C-alpha cells in the first residue's frame, strides 16, 4: 500500500515537472494575443482590471470595429472624446496627470486623439484618423519632461509632462466610453500590447 502511494506521488511529481518544463521551455516567448475589451451597453467602463505600467513606453496595436461607431442622443456629445488606452503618471490620479489615446466617431470618421491631463487641466490634440477593422499602431513614450504620442507612421506629437515624480505607481487606463453619455450598445475593442 505504502509503495503504491509512493509511486503515485512520484508519477504526480513527474507529471507536474513535465507540464511546467513544456510551458517554460520550447517557445522563447508566450504568445501575445489581442485582448478583448467590451464596454457593455449602458456602461462607461469595460471589464475591470488593475495593472501597472512597467516601462517608459506604452505601445500597442488596436483594432477598432463598427461597434465603435455611434450616434449620441445629444448632438453636442458627438464631440466628446472616449478613451482608448493609456496610463496615469507617477503616483497621480488620472484626472491630475495622465496620458491616453482617445477616440470619437465624428462625420463618419474614426478620429484618434492624444488625451491628457496636465496638473488637473484636460487637453486633447487630434492625431489623425484610422480605418475600421484594421490594426493600427499606437505609442506613448514617457520621457522626463514630455509625453510623446505616435499614431502609425505619423510624426510624434509631444506634450509637456507636468509630473516631476519619477519613482512610483503608474496605473494603466483601459477603454472608457464617454463623455457624458454611456455606451449606446456593446462596444468591442481589441488591443495587443507590444
Amino acid at each position, binding site marked *: 500500500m505504502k509503495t503504491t502511494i509512493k509511486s503515485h*506521488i512520484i508519477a*504526480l*511529481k513527474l507529471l*507536474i*515537472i513535465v507540464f*511546467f*518544463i513544456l*510551458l*517554460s*521551455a520550447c*517557445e*522563447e*516567448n*508566450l504568445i*501575445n494575443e489581442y485582448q478583448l475589451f467590451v464596454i457593455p451597453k449602458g456602461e462607461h467602463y469595460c471589464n475591470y*482590471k488593475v*495593472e*501597472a*505600467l*512597467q*516601462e*517608459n*513606453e506604452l505601445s500597442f496595436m488596436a483594432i477598432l470595429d463598427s461597434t465603435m461607431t455611434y450616434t449620441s442622443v445629444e448632438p453636442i456629445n458627438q464631440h466628446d472624446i472616449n478613451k482608448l488606452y493609456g496610463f496615469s503618471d507617477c503616483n497621480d490620479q488620472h484626472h491630475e496627470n495622465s496620458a491616453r489615446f482617445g477616440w470619437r466617431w465624428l462625420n463618419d470618421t474614426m478620429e484618434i486623439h492624444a488625451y491628457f491631463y496636465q496638473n488637473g487641466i484636460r487637453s486633447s490634440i487630434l492625431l489623425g484618423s484610422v480605418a475600421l477593422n484594421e490594426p493600427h499602431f499606437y505609442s506613448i513614450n514617457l520621457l522626463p519632461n514630455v509625453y510623446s504620442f505616435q499614431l502609425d507612421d505619423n510624426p510624434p506629437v509631444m506634450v509637456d509632462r507636468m509630473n516631476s515624480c*519619477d*519613482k*512610483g*505607481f*503608474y496605473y*494603466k487606463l483601459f477603454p472608457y466610453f464617454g463623455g457624458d453619455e454611456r455606451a449606446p450598445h456593446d462596444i468591442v475593442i481589441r488591443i495587443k*500590447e507590444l
Partner: protein
Amino acid sequence: MKIASTLYLVFAFIIGQAQNIELDIQRQKTIGGVEYGANVLIAKGNVAIGYSIQDSKRKATEYSDFNHRFQGMILKLPIRACENLSLFFMPRIGFVAEQFFVVLPELKLYLPLIRNIDLNLGSGIRYGQPSFSLGLSYSPKKR
C-alpha cells in the same frame, strides 16, 4: 529617517528570529520574453521574507532603452506545506527599472529533488498576463 529606522528594526527582528536561509534561482517565461532571477530569503518555519532580483535577456539597443529589471521584496507564505510537495504564495513587491512600482503575485510548487535542493514550479502574473517559472531552491537546513 524614521521609516528607515523602523525598517531596520523590523529586518533586524526578522533576521534575529530567522531559522533558515534559502537561495532560489529561476527562469520565468513571460509575455515580454524569458527572464532570469534570484531570491535570497530568510525563513522562520514555512514563512520567509527576502530580496528578489529578476532581469530579461533582452538588452537596450540604440532604438530602445529596454530595461525590465525587477528588484524588490519577496514573501513566501505557505498554502500547503507537506513533505513531498508544498505550495506557496510568493508575491514580490518592488520596482521595475528602478521606477515603476509593481506587485507580482505568484504561486509556487516546491518538489524536493535531492537533499537540500528543491525544484520549484511557479505560475504568476507578469506584465498583466500569465507567466510560468521553473527554478531551483537551496536551503542549508532541510524543512
